[in-house]
């Protein structure tokens, strides 16, 4: 196999806060190929956004990378200045809530031009044309006119498409979409997700979809990675994962999505809450919420076992 587009190896990351060290990520490893969509799934607080910020080099000053490596096309992104040179051009991100991410008093076309001028780099006159083309590429009809609109003149789904247009303006190789459809209608969500999927296949970029909705990730991603409290608990190609959900947390998380339940009684609840990531943590961070917990669960670091081709689980007693 050729070199992956993105590879993260053994990433461990803490935050030094006044109230102690927050162990946000521990031993995260994965890789992403061109043309592939990877879904990172978990509850809020599981570390999925921190992971994407780490890749994008957008971490808070309190963050400390203890070990591991993040490589983009073989380049070490942890090196000073490496990410800054790539961000916006090669690495791009779509944020949650498009309305707050867009500048409310600047026309959307100009905002895309700004990105092109800064990261392209491209002269302003040329950028104008390219911005309209970028808007047309995300299937917005009448792109010329829409480019002159302010964010408040556009619907939520339209704003999100503008965000995607902006993220894709410089033809990045890697796109990270952090909950790109939260707050959108299901019909708009479907259109936006179809668009992301089709653009990934067309342009052969790699994409990471961050979401708490396992059903959504299951429909659109090629591979899934389930996170809980800073650990990757299960990862597999989507078909293989849904063929057999092995980690107790993955099973619960899916059973808690309305899609999976026939009636309200079937709908599962995940007991307890995420552990406090400060102080000493058990080896298995899910143990206090787990129904399959055994005395040996805390006997040592939980191995990340490969149980089927490309399907790995961090659990001593998988289902």
């Amino acid at each position, binding site marked *: 196999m050729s070199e992956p587009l993105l590879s993260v190896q053994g990433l461990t990351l803490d935050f030094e806060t006044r109230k102690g060290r927050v162990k946000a990520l521990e031993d995260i490893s994965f890789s992403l190929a061109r043309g592939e969509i990877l879904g990172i799934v978990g*509850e809020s607080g599981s570390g999925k956004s921190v992971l994407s910020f780490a890749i994008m080099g957008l971490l808070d000053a309190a963050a400390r990378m203890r070990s591991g490596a993040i490589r983009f096309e073989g380049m070490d992104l942890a090196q000073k200045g490496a990410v800054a040179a790539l961000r916006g051009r090669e690495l791009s991100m779509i944020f949650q809530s498009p309305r707050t991410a867009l500048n409310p008093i600047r026309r959307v076309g100009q905002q895309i031009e700004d990105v092109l001028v800064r990261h392209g780099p491209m002269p302003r006159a040329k950028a104008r044309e390219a911005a309209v083309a970028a808007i047309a590429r995300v299937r917005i009809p009448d792109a010329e006119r829409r480019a002159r609109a302010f964010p408040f003149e556009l619907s939520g789904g339209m704003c999100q498409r503008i965000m995607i247009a902006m993220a894709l303006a410089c033809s990045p190789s890697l796109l990270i979409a952090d909950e790109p459809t939260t707050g959108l209608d*299901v*019909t708009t969500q*479907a259109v936006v997700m*179809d668009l992301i999927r089709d653009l990934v296949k067309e342009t052969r970029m790699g994409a990471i979809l961050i979401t*708490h909705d396992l059903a959504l990730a299951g429909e659109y991603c090629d591979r899934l990675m389930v996170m809980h409290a800073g650990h990757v608990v299960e990862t597999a190609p*989507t078909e293989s994962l849904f063929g057999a959900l092995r980690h107790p947390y993955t099973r619960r998380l899916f059973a808690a999505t*309305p*899609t999976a339940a026939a009636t309200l009684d079937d709908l599962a609840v995940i007991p307890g809450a995420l552990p406090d990531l400060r102080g000493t943590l058990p080896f298995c961070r899910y143990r206090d919420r787990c129904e399959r917990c055994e005395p040996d669960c805390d006997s040592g670091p939980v191995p990340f076992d490969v149980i089927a081709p490309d399907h790995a689980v961090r659990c001593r007693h998988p289902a």
Partner: protein
Amino acid sequence: MSVLLDARNLSKRYPVRHGGRTGQLHAVDDVDLAIAEGECVGLVGESGCGKSTIARLAARLLEPSAGRLLFAGTDIGAVPLRRFTTRPERAAIQVVFQDPTESLNPGFTVFAAVADPVRHLLGTGNAAAVEARVWRAIDDVGLPRALAQRYPHQLSGGQKARVGIARAIAVEPRLLILDEPTSALDVSVQSVVLKLLGELRTRRRMSYLFVSHDLDVVRLICDRIAVMYLGKIIEIGTTESLLRVPAHPYTRALLAATPDPKRRGLQIARLAGTATSPIDPDPNSCRFAGRCPLEFSRCSVEMPALRPLATDQAAACHLAGVLP
């Protein structure tokens, strides 16, 4: 079962100015909707379809432009907003709002937030009686009593959602209006809240008007579902029937848009574009015309009426009941 809330020909129009002339924005247009005692009715549709306006009309937070709104036989739509606050129905109809973080007063402790409506709406001056009600509500939503003196910023999202519900049920309403109660929540918190709502409904014998854009959520909790499009109810029926044989093309499109891992890799036809303008819509055209995949000549000259079908539902489409 007797009818608790009965909306008849209910409309809400807003005067707007566009292109130099004044027009009417039809937020809710001639809607009939009845909710029986103990029943849960779901109201679904895209943003801007008027579902939240119906919720606000039913809670009497808005003045209807036309139509009647009967609550247990009394026309509460005819009571002016200012006078409604002192009516007994004010306590009998309560609302749980969308975002628990935005809808709680940051300066109120949990206890104070729940006690506030009890004091104002029930007019009980007796501190012990107020306290008893507040504790009962807090216990009923499964909030530990130890959290009662906390402020919203000291609570998790799920706990805040519980406070929002406790606040609404403390005055023992007969109708609870839920305006997108889970759409701002994580999947894990959403499942807890949905189960809690299901449980409370049986225990406290309330009726629900459950507003959501997500059919998958509504289906789990509602007896009947009404689907709205541009101010109109375009399909209504029992949950079972509506989901098994959706008759309106819009309902079908909504169902097809719900994410499902089983549909991975399939290219599904999506609704193109956005809804037409709600300002002075053509009274002789189907509201869904222009976006409907099955549109034919009759659709733009004759608005289809909501008509009952052989199944437990009614749909406003010329092709309803004929479609495979």
